């Protein structure tokens, strides 16, 4: 794990959410382990859309940190989240794909799923401000 990814993982909020990452070669899969406090609507029951959005933002940032050497944590500029299916009370997984890696701004897509990778529960795309190591601004 890079020092920056460690910094992301050490953020009190990320620790509190319980997010972890499984590394398979250069692929990074985010895991949001299910706990009762992630439920947004107990009637359905479904996980909170905000928790899913936050988890995908963290996965996007981790994907950017894994892909290049950054001097600071990526900062979200904008994100757009599509909620595709009710997110059941169970673990959620997510993987980020960098659409465009720029010297200042990167465009990232994230898909989140539960039982089946082919049936995503949510999708995010967004722009993040990045600061590659050694870049002059």
């Amino acid at each position, binding site marked *: 794990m890079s020092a920056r990814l460690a910094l992301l993982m050490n953020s009190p909020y990320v620790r509190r959410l319980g997010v972890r990452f499984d590394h398979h070669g250069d692929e990074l899969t985010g895991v949001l382990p299910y706990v009762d406090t992630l439920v947004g609507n107990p009637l359905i029951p479904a996980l909170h859309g*905000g928790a899913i959005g936050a988890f995908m933002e963290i996965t996007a940032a981790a994907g950017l940190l894994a892909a290049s050497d950054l001097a600071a944590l990526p900062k979200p500029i*904008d994100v757009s989240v599509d909620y595709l299916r009710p997110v059941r009370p169970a673990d959620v997984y997510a993987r980020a794909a960098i659409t465009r890696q720029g010297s200042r701004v990167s465009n990232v897509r994230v898909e989140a799923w539960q039982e089946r990778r082919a049936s995503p529960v949510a999708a995010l795309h967004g722009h993040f401000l990045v600061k590659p190591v050694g870049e002059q601004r």
Partner: protein
Amino acid sequence: MTDALQSRLDQLAPLLVSGSPHAADLGFVLDAVRPGEAVVRAPYRDDLIGDPDTGVMHGGVVTALLDHAAGTAAFAGLGGDKALATLDLRIDYMRPAEPGRAVIAEAHTVKVSGLIAFVSAIAHDGDHNDPVATAHAAFMVSRVSQEAADRVRADIEAGRAGPFTRTPGPGEKGSPR
């Protein structure tokens, strides 16, 4: 109608945040709910910090806050008696929230069209004109949510349970998860 809706919202108000385990866990507070509008606050807490070097609250907390405020505004815009699903949520992050300050999300329903509510929201840390983030979201009355809500209403009317305690739906195991 508006008065009836406002009194229904006033009655439900204590549940609109505390009835959502995730919103309650993050310490959200409902400041106001009116037909089509909601104000929800996230008091500053050390365990919600994103970057320990700066003490700035994590963007994910702002995401969850805006989602919750927008969803509550949509609920209040669609008559206060329908269960909703979020279709999409778009957030623009304008600046970091000031460390130590609560973040306040103000959401209003721009338009209700059939089963869809379009909602606009801003998050700020004291000055409404200097937003931390803005958001747009669309919500829809969903079949699965509505069936769950109908079961609960039937339970309440039959005196079997209160809001946010539920009996299992068809095909579900006995105990709520």
